[in-house]
C-alpha cells in the first residue's frame, strides 16, 4: 500500500497559507451544478485536457491534520493571466474516527459535486482528468484566491460529511510539483484502489444492487449486480450500482440487501430472491447468481454474450453479439438471444456481460471454465487471460470445430474435462459423469433401432430430457423449457419396442 503522509513542499517554492473560516464573495448552491463556463466567459482554465492536474484525498491520523488550513503552492489567481491555462492539483488531508483509506475515494468523489456548487466555478471529471474553469464573473465579484475555493470546499465537506472531523487542503499550481506528485503519489494510489476492486467479492459486502433499466422491454428482468457479477449489458459494476443508488435510491439501481446466504457456491441469497420476486411481479422466485442450470439469472436482451448448453458434449459454449455465424449448436447469436431475452429464466441459455468472464465466481456451481467447450476466436482472445492456463488449449473456437461432431472430436483429442467428467474447482465435487464411453454405446443402440433420419439441429435441452415410460401411455413433463423442433415423428408405442 502506498504510504499515506503529507506531501513535502520543496524549498524555494512560493507558498501561501490561510487558516480558519471566512466569508465568501460568491454564492454556494446546488443550482450551479452543471454550469458550463463558456470560453468567452472564462477567466482561467486549470488542469483539463490540455494541461495536467489531479485531485486526491488522503486519510491521516488526527494529530497530523490541521483543521481548515489551506495551503497554495505556486501562483495564485491574481497573478494569472486572463484566458490562461495552468496545471492544478487539489489534495485534501482528512481525519476522523471513521476515516481510513477505504473511505478516501468516497470522499474524493464529492469534490466534484461540492465545487460545482460554487458560483462561477466549473469542475469536471475526477482523479487525474479533472478540468476546472473559473469565470470572469466570479473574479469580478471578488474571487481573488484559490484559497477561498479551498475553504469553501472544506466547509461543504464538513457540513455534508460530518464524519470528517478534520480537513486540510493543499492546492498546487506549480507545474513541476503537480507533475511529480501526479506520477509519484496520485497515480499509484488510484491504481491501488482499482486493484482493490478486483479483490472485492460477494461475501465482502452486505448489499448488492439492482438494475431495472431494461424493464421497458424486458418487464420481468431484474439484474442483480454483485461484486462478482456485473450487469448483463456489461455497463454497470457493483461500484456503479452503489454510486447510482446513493444519488437516487428510488431509481433504476436500488440496494438489494443480501439477506442470508442459502447456497454460497451457486450464489443464492434470501434477500436477492425476495427482491427478484417482488420486482418481477412474482414471475421469478429464485435466482442463483453463479449457476447456469439451476435458477439462473434472468436474461434481458441486451446482454453482450450468450451461453448455451450442448447436451451432446455436456458442455457450455459462449457466443458474443458480434459473431455472425451459427455456433456448433446450429444457431447464431441473434436466434439464441431472441429465444432467451425478455427477462426470462431460460435453463440452457444464459445472457452475461463480458466482464463476468473475469469473475472469480464465473459459473462456479457448474464448473466455471472447466465446463466451457467453445467460443468464437475473437471472444476467446479477448478473455484469454481470465481462462485458467490448463484450459486455454481445451476450449474450441470456430477454427477447431463448427459442428457438434467436430466439437466432440476436438474435445476428445484435447481431453477436455467434460469428456471424462468435470470436477468443479470450488469444492472438488465431481459434477458430471463424462460421456466418452456412454457415447459409444449410444451409437450402437442407435444403429439397432432404426436410425432417426430426421435429426434436428441439436438444441440445448433444458434440465432433464423427458423420459419415455414403459407404460403404454406417454407422459411428457417439461419445465422451464425452450425447445426448437424441426420435425416430430409419432409412432405407436409397440413399434418403438424392440
Amino acid at each position, binding site marked *: 500500500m502506498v504510504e499515506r503522509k503529507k506531501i513535502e513542499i520543496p524549498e524555494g517554492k512560493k507558498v501561501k497559507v490561510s487558516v480558519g473560516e471566512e466569508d465568501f464573495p460568491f454564492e454556494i448552491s446546488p443550482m450551479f451544478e452543471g454550469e*458550463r463556463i463558456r470560453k468567452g466567459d472564462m477567466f482561467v482554465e486549470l488542469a483539463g485536457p490540455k494541461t495536467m492536474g489531479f485531485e486526491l484525498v488522503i486519510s491521516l491520523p488526527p494529530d497530523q491534520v490541521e483543521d481548515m488550513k489551506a495551503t497554495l503552492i505556486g501562483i495564485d489567481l491574481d497573478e494569472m493571466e486572463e484566458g490562461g491555462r495552468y496545471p492544478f492539483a487539489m489534495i485534501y488531508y482528512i481525519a476522523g474516527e471513521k476515516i481510513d483509506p477505504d473511505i478516501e475515494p468516497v470522499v474524493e468523489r464529492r469534490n466534484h459535486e461540492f465545487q460545482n456548487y460554487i458560483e462561477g466555478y466549473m469542475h469536471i471529471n475526477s482523479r487525474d482528468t479533472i478540468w476546472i474553469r473559473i469565470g470572469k464573473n466570479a473574479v469580478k465579484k471578488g474571487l481573488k484566491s484559490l484559497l477561498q475555493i479551498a475553504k469553501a470546499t472544506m466547509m461543504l465537506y464538513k457540513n455534508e460529511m460530518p464524519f470528517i472531523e478534520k480537513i486540510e487542503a493543499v492546492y498546487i499550481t506549480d507545474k513541476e510539483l503537480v507533475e511529480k506528485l501526479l506520477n509519484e503519489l496520485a497515480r499509484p494510489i488510484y491504481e491501488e484502489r482499482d486493484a482493490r476492486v478486483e479483490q472485492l467479492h460477494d461475501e465482502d459486502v452486505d448489499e448488492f444492487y439492482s438494475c431495472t433499466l431494461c424493464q421497458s422491454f424486458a418487464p420481468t428482468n431484474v439484474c442483480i449486480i454483485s461484486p462478482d457479477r456485473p450487469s448483463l449489458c456489461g455497463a454497470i459494476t457493483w461500484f456503479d450500482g452503489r*454510486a447510482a443508488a446513493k444519488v437516487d435510491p428510488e431509481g433504476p439501481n436500488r440496494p438489494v440487501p443480501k439477506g442470508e446466504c442459502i447456497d454460497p457456491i451457486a450464489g443464492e441469497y434470501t434477500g436477492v430472491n425476495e427482491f427478484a420476486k417482488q420486482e418481477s411481479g412474482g414471475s421469478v422466485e429464485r435466482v442463483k447468481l453463479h449457476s447456469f442450470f439451476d435458477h439462473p439469472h434472468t436474461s434481458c436482451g441486451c446482454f453482450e454474450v450468450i451461453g448455451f448448453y450442448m447436451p451432446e458434449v455436456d458442455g457450455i459454449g459462449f457466443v458474443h453479439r458480434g459473431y455472425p455465424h451459427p455456433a456448433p449448436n446450429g444457431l447464431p447469436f441473434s436466434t439464441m438471444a431472441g429465444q432467451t431475452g425478455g427477462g426470462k429464466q431460460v435453463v440452457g441459455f444464459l445472457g452475461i456481460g463480458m466482464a463476468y468472464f473475469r469473475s472469480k465466481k464465473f459459473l462456479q456451481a457448474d464448473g466455471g471454465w472447466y465446463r466451457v467447450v467453445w467460443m468464437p476466436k475473437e471472444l476467446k482472445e479477448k478473455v484469454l487471460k481470465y481462462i485458467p492456463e490448463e484450459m486455454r488449449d481445451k476450449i474450441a473456437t470456430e477454427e477447431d470445430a463448427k459442428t457438434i461432431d467436430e466439437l466432440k472430436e476436438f474435445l476428445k483429442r484435447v481431453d477436455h474435462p467434460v469428456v471424462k467428467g468435470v470436477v468443479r474447482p470450488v469444492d472438488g465435487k465431481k459434477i458430471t459423469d463424462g460421456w466418452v464411453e456412454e457415447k459409444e454405446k449410444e451409437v450402437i443402440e442407435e444403429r439397432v433401432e432404426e436410425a432417426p433420419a430426421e435429426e434436428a439441429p441439436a438444441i440445448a435441452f433444458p434440465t432433464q430430457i423427458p423420459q419415455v415410460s414403459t407404460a403404454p401411455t406417454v407422459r411428457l413433463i417439461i419445465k422451464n423449457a425452450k425447445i426448437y423442433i424441426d420435425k416430430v415423428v409419432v409412432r405407436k408405442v409397440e413399434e418403438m419396442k424392440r
Partner: protein
Amino acid sequence: MVVIAVTGKGGTGKTAVAALLVKFISEITSNVLAVDADPDSNLPDALGVEVDKTLGDVRELFQVTRESLGTVDKESWLEGKIFEVIHEFDNFDLLVMGRPEGEGCYCFVNNLLRGILKKFMRHYDYVIVDCEAGLEHFSRKTIESADYIIVVTDTSRKGLKTAKKIRELAKELNLKFKEIFLVGNKIVGDEAKEIIKDFAKKENFVLLDLLPYDEKVVELDLKGEPIINLPEDSEFAKKVRFIAEVLTRWGS
C-alpha cells in the same frame, strides 16, 4: 432555459432557419447552445464552423472503455467527455449528436446522458435544436422537452404531410411545448401563401411567417457555404431575424 426545436422534412430549409436563428439569437445573448440532432443535415456547415467530434463518438467510446474504468465514476467520466466535444465559438456553443447507435445495449449510457444533458442544458439561455422529423432525441428523452417547436415546410405535399405527422408525434410524445409553430418556406405567389395558411388553420398550427424563395439561400446551399453569410438585408434573413426577436420576447 428556452428550448427551440426546428424541424420539418429534409430539403424544406429547416437547417437554414435553425442556423439563422442561432446567429440572431446569439447576437442578443451569447449564452446559446446549438444542437445538431439531425444526422442527415449539417448544422455546422450552415453555421460555417468545423466540428470533428460528436456525442455519438463519446457514446461509442464509453461502450468500449467502460470496462476498463475501474472505480472511476462513469457519470463524471461521461460528463467530462461531453464537455470536451462541445465546440465553443464566440457567440454560441455547438453540440453535434452524431451517428446513431451501434449494436449492444445503450440503456445505461443513454440513462446517464439524459441526466447529464438535462443538468447541463439548463444553464443556457437558449438551446436551439435542429432535429429530424422523427424527433428522435425528444422521444428518447435525451433532450427532455422543447418549449417551442418550429415546423418548416414548403408547399410540397410531402412537406405538408411531414408537418402534420410532426404535429401528431409531438402530441403523442407528450412534449410539454408551449407552442407549435409553422413556418412556410420557398413561398412564391399568392396561391402558395393560401396553401400554407389553409394548412396551418386546418392543422391547428400558429403560422409564424412565410419565407420567400431566395436564390441566394439556394446558391449558398449548393456551394456548401455557410448560410449565415446570407446578406442581412435580404428578405429571408430579415424575416428570420424577426422570428428570433419574437421568440426571445416570448421566451423571456
